[in-house]
C-alpha cells in the first residue's frame, strides 16, 4: 500500500537553475497557482509550507532513503557533530519545512565516493494514527543520478503523493514513476497536477572542504527522530541508544 500511494516523481534537471523559471509562477490549469518552483533557494519552499500551515513546526515525517543496491546513509541530528549512520534503506523522521543534509557513502558502484544530497519536506503524509512509520516518504536515488552528481551535475527531484483518481493502474506494482522534465518546466506545478508535492531532493557533486570548511554547507540543522528499528530491516545499524533516541555521546565525529 505504501508503494501504491507513494508515487514518485522527479524532475531530473541536470544542472539547470534558471532565472526565467524562478521569475514565473505557473498556472497548473486545474485552478491551482504555484508561485514557486524547484529553483527557489533551498529552504524557501519549506518555510512557505510551514507558513501555509501544511504541517506543524514539530511534525516529524518519516522518510526512507533507498539506494541502488547497498550503502550507508548518514543523517545529522541537529549539527554535523551528531551523525547517525544507517544502512540503506535508511529511515528517519524529519521535520517538515526544514532542510536536511545527508551523506551517502559505501556505494559499491562508487568506491570511496561520497555524496551529500539534501531533503526539504514541503508537506507531510496523513497515515492512520500510530502507523506513520509504515508509510514513510520514499526517496529513491538512482544510479544515473549518482553518475550525474559525480560528473558535477545537479539533480533536482520533486517527490509527490499521487492523487488516487490519477493513478495509472499499470504502475500499481511496478517501478516508481519517474518523469523527466525540461529545465524550464515547473516540477512543483507538475507534481501538483498529479498529486501533492511532498519533498524536494537535491544532489550535486559538492563535498565538504577540509582545508576551508563552510559550516553553512550543513544548513541550519534540525533534529531527527528514530523510532522503529525493525522497519528498515535487519541490516540497519543504529549508532544511538536502543530506543532510538539520539544521544550525543554515542556518535562519532563527522568525517571532515
Amino acid at each position, binding site marked *: 500500500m505504501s508503494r501504491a500511494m507513494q508515487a514518485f516523481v522527479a524532475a*531530473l*534537471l*541536470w*544542472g*539547470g*537553475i*534558471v*532565472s*526565467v*523559471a*524562478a*521569475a*514565473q*509562477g*505557473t*498556472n497548473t*490549469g486545474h485552478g491551482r*497557482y504555484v*508561485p*514557486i518552483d524547484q*529553483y*527557489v*533557494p*533551498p*529552504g*524557501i519552499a*519549506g*518555510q512557505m509550507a510551514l507558513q501555509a500551515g501544511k504541517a506543524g513546526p514539530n511534525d516529524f515525517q518519516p522518510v526512507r532513503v533507498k539506494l541502488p543496491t547497498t550503502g550507508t546513509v548518514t543523517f545529522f541530528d541537529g549539527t554535523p557533530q551528531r551523525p547517525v549512520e544507517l544502512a540503506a534503506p535508511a529511515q528517519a523522521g524529519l521535520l517538515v519545512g*526544514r*532542510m536536511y543534509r545527508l551523506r551517502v557513502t559505501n556505494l559499491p558502484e562508487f568506491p570511496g565516493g561520497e555524496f*551529500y*544530497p*539534501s531533503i526539504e519536506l514541503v508537506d507531510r503524509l496523513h497515515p492512520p494514527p500510530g502507523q506513520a512509520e509504515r508509510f514513510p516518504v520514499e526517496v529513491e536515488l538512482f544510479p544515473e543520478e549518482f553518475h550525474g552528481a559525480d560528473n*558535477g*551535475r*545537479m539533480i*533536482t527531484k520533486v517527490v509527490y503523493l499521487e492523487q488516487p483518481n490519477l493513478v495509472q493502474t499499470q504502475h500499481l506494482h511496478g517501478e516508481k514513476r519517474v518523469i*523527466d*522534465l*525540461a*529545465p*524550464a518546466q515547473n516540477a512543483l506545478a507538475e507534481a501538483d497536477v498529479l498529486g501533492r508535492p511532498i519533498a524536494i531532493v*537535491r*544532489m*550535486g*557533486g*559538492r*563535498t565538504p*572542504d577540509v*582545508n*576551508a*570548511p*563552510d559550516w*553553512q*554547507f550543513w*544548513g*541550519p540543522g534540525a533534529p531527527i527522530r528514530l523510532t522503529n528499528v525493525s522497519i528498515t530491516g535487519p541490516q540497519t545499524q543504529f549508532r544511538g541508544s536502543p530506543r532510538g533516541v539520539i544521544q550525543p555521546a554515542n556518535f562519532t565525529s563527522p568525517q571532515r
Partner: protein
Amino acid sequence: MKYYFLALGTVVVVCVGCAMDGQQLTKKGEFHAPPAAMMQRPGPMVDGPGPGVLPMMAPPPQRPFALTTSQVRFVGPDGMKVGWQVPNGYAENQLVAPARYNFVQGQTYRLKLAGIPGHEGLTIYPTLKVYPAHPNTEAYLSHNSLPLQINVEDLEQVEGNNFVTKVIYLPDARYQELAVANVETLVSTRLDPGVDPIQEADKMGTIMAVLEMGNLDLEMPNPVAPQGTALNADGSEVQQVAYRAAFDGEQGQMMPPMPIGPAGQHVNGIPNAMMMAGMGLPGQPAGPISGVNMPVWGMPTTGTPIGLPGPTHLPYGGPAGLKSHTVRNLTKTDIGKPVDHMLIDVEHEPGISLPHPVKYVNYKEKHPVYSPGEVGYPAWAQPQGADGAYCPPGQQPQP
C-alpha cells in the same frame, strides 16, 4: 430596427459581462510571480522603517541554506599546482589538480598556477573572481562545485601574449536546449573580437565565477636597480632584509588565500529601501546633523594663499586688514543644471500577475432524502423484531 439591435446588444453585453470579469480579454492563462529575490522580501523600498518613527517593518527572512563560499574544482590539467596570494607573498602548492577549495564569495583572488604538465617553465598568475550567490544560483552552489578547466588552448593563448577570460555561469532555461545541461563556461578566445564574455554570460544566465589570466610575471626580480638604490661593489643591487612569508603546501604549510578586491557587485537585484537621513531611529543621530556628525554650518573650508581657512590676519599680530579675497574659476563648463525632479521608471517584463483574491465562496451541501421504507440496513445491523423478522425503522419494539 435600430432599437432592436440596441436591445440585442444590451442583452449580449449583460449576459457576457456576467460570465467575464475582464481578465479573459487580457490574460492568457499565465501568471508571473516576482523574481526569486523579491519573493524573499516584502518588496523594493517597502521593508524599511516608516516615516522617521517606526522601526523596520520586518527584517528580510533568513536564508536558511545560504552558503558564504563557492567551491571551485580545479579540474585540470592533472598535476597542475595551484597556489594563491597571501599576505607578504604567495602560498605555493596549496592544491594539486584535480582538487577543490571553498572560496569566500564576493571576493577576488590572485592565483598562482605552476607545474603544468607540458608547460613546466610556465607560471601564470590569474585572478579569480568569485561572485556572490544569487537566489538563482543558491541551490546550485550549495550542492555543486564550479568546474575550472585550463586546457592546452588557454595556455597557448597565454603564451601567445593574449588575455584569456573564462566566465563560469549558470544558463537560463531558455538557453538550455536539452534537459541534460550543466553549468557552462564562456571563453573570450572563442568569441568574436570585441565581444565581452562577461556581458554575454550575463545575458544568458547568472555569473558565478570569472577567471582572467595573462602572462604577466608578478614575481619577476627587478632587473634594473631603481635610482638611488645602494649597490654592492660588483654593481649588483643590495638585497634589503625584509620579512617574506613562504608557504609551501608540499611541506604541509597551508594558508588561506587573501582577497585582493571585491567581485560581483550584484547581490540579489532588488534595491534597498531608499530613505532620507539614513537608517536611524528617533533619538539617535542618523542623518547629517550640523555640529554633531558634520562640521558646523558655515565653517569656512575655502583655501587661501596661506593654506588656512577663512580670512587671514596678516601680518600676524597686526590688525585685520584683508577685506576681500577672491578666487575666480574661469573654466568654461557645460554640465547642465541641477535636476529638480527625478524620474526613474522600472518595469518587469513580463509583469507580475497573480490570481486575484477570492471574494466569493459558495459552499453547498446536498443531502439525500429518503422516504419511509427506502432505507435499508446491512444484515449485521438489521433491527430485529420480536420474532426475528425484519422490523422497519420506527416500528422497533420498545425495550
